[in-house]
């Protein structure tokens, strides 16, 4: 008996060279020859690129010519090309599941030093696959309908762009943002490189569209708390935190803020990174969407003592939008696909004490400086130091928290360009002499190099060398009262001491602090640095390993605004392609229970995490609901009688494979 009844099994084995990727290490000829001698193998070939059209044609032709009914391809990871060759098998007129892929690239040629050992290993894996495929059966993929609603997590430029794209195509969108307003980091920026467009001028119209677009359901001050289900049919719980102002009733006039007992702002404003002050009732920033203020219960007198005259309530009058009784609410959503656009955080420079951030008041982060140069920022665009002075010399330090084994090894990609932008803006606004300290200048984008040239021509000093530290100990009167940067000018070959009034730390982009929790919530992969893992770095950059969940923007890795927008569009398109198809095909790897073999021991019932198995009291056997089964196979492993089996991973298949690898 084999997987196909008693019909004789005819196996074709195809070994891919993958150029030199495989053939450079594995002796592909010997591999194909050894496979030819395995039981059931009718034809065994090697070819330069199996995944190419001629390669696939070879399989189709052979299948017809030799009457093959099993195909084994030895090439790369099934995560890359399993689908490709299943289609080839189907094109050849055979059931696509009568195929098995052997990974001799990622698991063999790329990780082995010794060609002989690599060839041995590849032979064993191919032998196992031949033994396994013998037991393969014809299967049909399952079809599941796709709910057209989309959940977008994060309302920065990535989330906004994806939401608008989907909504304008008529798809219902839930946009969930943790902060009181959408806009994300881009709303905090002054100008954008390299065109020096005003960030607010290009972002705020999009933010307003979000509010106006009827297909977008915007939820601010909200966080996803639970995700269940699977592609096409996710169930999501969202926690909505109280704003204490009814969004439906508020007209955004701001009179309540005027009437607060605090005449001036007193508490550090989040949006201005503490450089500006706000009242307990406040608008996050003037162009916030929704354009509704919020009350911070931690600082509001009414919450603390219940003794506030409540000028805000009084002035709101009949509109009656202020509601101190709001509480946390949880809503449940049903969506078919999810786009993650949770963004990034900036590096905390206190981790590198040598730069004196937090110790010397005039050491700033680049994001703080964005607020300082911004016309609507806390200083109305005046660049003045914390002591009110105008800086005469400014040092901008690149790579703070990037390209550093002590912090993050990766390059944050945008720092060179935003540092150039800040150099230009700071010079323009203050006339100060600006120094940029860089390791390598990275300007590989459209118009970027031209911008670098422009800043060079501005007369900004570019010093190739990483500043070792910021100190205040002066060696000469000229250094008194200054921040002194000690640096090796690596191009000129001298050590320099440069006194400045203001230090700007070009901080790295990092994964959000709670990326690990969010990743678990959505069952995503994460790189060691905390960035969400895409399905394939080149060919599936917005997909994830969880079907139906896509990535947009910096949650996947540092990137600039155009790349973020492009990726958000791609994520929206991927989501739409699922919605418009209307259904998804699921891997037919579900389990089933052979009634005659079931002894009714109940073991499998407790094993299933999806309650897909119940016990039929009449028949005294376990019954599996295929619609609920996700195909993990845990019940199969637990079944003492062999009654539980799993498609594509049946006992016969796995046992044959194990035996096969043990040459």
């Amino acid at each position, binding site marked *: 008996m084999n997987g196909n009844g008693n019909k004789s099994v005819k196996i074709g084995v195809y070994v891919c060279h993958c150029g030199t990727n495989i053939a450079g290490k594995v002796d592909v000829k010997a591999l194909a020859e050894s496979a030819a001698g395995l039981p059931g193998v009718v034809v065994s070939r090697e070819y330069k690129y199996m995944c190419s059209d001629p390669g696939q044609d070879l399989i189709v032709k052979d299948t017809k010519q030799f009457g093959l009914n099993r195909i084994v391809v030895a090439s790369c*990871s*099934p*995560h890359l090309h399993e689908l490709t060759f299943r289609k080839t098998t189907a094109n050849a007129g055979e059931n696509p599941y009568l195929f098995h892929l052997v*990974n001799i*690239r*990622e*698991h*063999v040629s*790329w*990780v*082995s*030093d*010794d060609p002989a*050992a*690599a060839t*041995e*290993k590849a032979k*064993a*894996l191919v032998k*196992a696959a031949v033994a396994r495929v013998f037991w393969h059966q014809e299967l049909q993929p399952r079809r599941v309908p796709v709910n057209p609603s989309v959940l977008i997590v994060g309302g920065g430029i990535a989330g906004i762009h994806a939401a608008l794209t989907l909504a304008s195509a008529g798809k219902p969108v839930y946009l969930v943002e943790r902060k009181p307003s959408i806009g994300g980091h881009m709303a905090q920026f002054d100008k954008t490189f390299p065109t020096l467009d005003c960030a607010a001028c290009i972002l705020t119209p999009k933010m307003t569209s979000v509010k106006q677009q009827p297909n977008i359901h915007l939820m601010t001050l909200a966080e996803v708390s639970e995700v269940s289900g699977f592609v096409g049919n996710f169930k999501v719980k969202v926690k909505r935190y109280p704003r204490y102002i009814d969004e439906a009733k508020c007209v955004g006039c701001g009179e309540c803020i005027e009437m607060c007992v605090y005449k001036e702002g007193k508490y550090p404003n989040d949006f201005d990174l503490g450089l500006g002050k706000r009242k307990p009732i406040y608008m996050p920033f003037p162009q916030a969407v929704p354009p509704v203020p919020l009350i911070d219960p931690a600082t509001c007198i009414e919450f603390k003592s219940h003794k506030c005259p409540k000028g805000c309530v009084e002035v709101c009058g009949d509109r009656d939008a202020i509601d101190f009784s709001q509480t946390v609410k949880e809503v449940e959503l049903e969506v078919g696909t999810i786009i993650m656009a949770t963004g990034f955080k900036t590096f905390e420079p206190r981790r590198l004490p040598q730069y004196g951030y937090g110790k010397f008041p005039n050491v700033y982060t680049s994001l703080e400086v964005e607020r300082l140069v911004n016309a609507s920022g806390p200083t109305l665009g005046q660049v003045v130091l914390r002591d009110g002075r105008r800086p005469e010399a400014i040092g901008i330090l690149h790579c703070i928290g990037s390209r550093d084994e002590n912090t993050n090894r990766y390059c944050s990609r945008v720092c060179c360009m935003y540092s150039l932008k800040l150099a230009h803006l700071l010079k323009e606004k203050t006339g100060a002499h600006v120094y940029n300290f860089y390791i390598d200048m990275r300007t590989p984008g459209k118009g970027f190099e031209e911008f670098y040239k422009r800043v060079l021509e501005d007369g900004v000093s570019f010093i190739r060398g990483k500043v070792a530290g910021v100190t205040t100990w002066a060696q000469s009167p000229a250094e008194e009262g200054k921040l002194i940067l000690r640096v090796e000018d690596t191009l000129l070959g001298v050590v320099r001491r440069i006194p400045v009034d203001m230090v700007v730390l070009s901080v790295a982009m990092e994964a959000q602090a709670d990326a690990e929790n969010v990743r*678990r919530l959505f*069952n995503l*992969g*994460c*790189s*060691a640095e905390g960035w969400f*893992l895409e399905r394939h*770095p080149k060919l599936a950059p917005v997909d994830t*390993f969880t079907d139906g969940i896509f990535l947009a923007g910096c949650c996947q890795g540092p990137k600039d605004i155009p790349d973020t927008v492009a990726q958000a569009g791609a994520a929206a398109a991927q989501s739409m392609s699922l919605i418009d198809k209307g259904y998804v095909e699921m891997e037919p*790897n579900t389990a089933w229970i052979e009634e005659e073999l079931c002894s009714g021991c109940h073991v499998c019932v407790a*094993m299933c*995490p999806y309650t897909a198995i119940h016990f039929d009291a009449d028949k005294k056997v376990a019954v599996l609901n295929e619609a609920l089964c*996700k*195909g*993990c*196979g*845990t019940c*199969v*492993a*637990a079944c003492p009688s062999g009654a539980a089996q*799993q498609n594509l*991973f049946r*006992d016969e298949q*796995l*046992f044959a*494979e*194990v*035996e096969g*690898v*043990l*040459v």
Partner: protein
Amino acid sequence: MSDGFNPLIVGFFCNWCTYLAADLAGTSRMKYAPNVRVVRTMCSGRVDPQMILWAFSHGADGVLIGGCHPGDCHYQEGNYKALRRTALLRKMLTQFGIEPERLRLEWISASEAERLRDVVNEFSEQIRGLGPLHLRPDVREEVVAA
């Protein structure tokens, strides 16, 4: 290999974490010992103790199971089931005259290619140190039957 004994190890890697870590080790061109032969399962929870015994009785000198970290299982808790099963099986192995160290369970996430490399290298060395597994023929039959 120069010192004669080249251990054979069967690796049962779950599709979502450890298999992907092995893929990443490949794309990162990390080099590691060629002794582990990978059998892919959807979840480490699919790894049947019988399958492990089957491997030992068919010539494996070691078995390495790779799953997602606790709390990260693609199927919620299959990895916990694997953990319990291996713990139990280890006790049984001693009775068959198989050193329990020949069976190893590791949590390796999709991004931990370096860890995968280190575990494979370390385990290969450890098994090399233990020497080949010589199952007595009668035990072998017993194991196959188990």
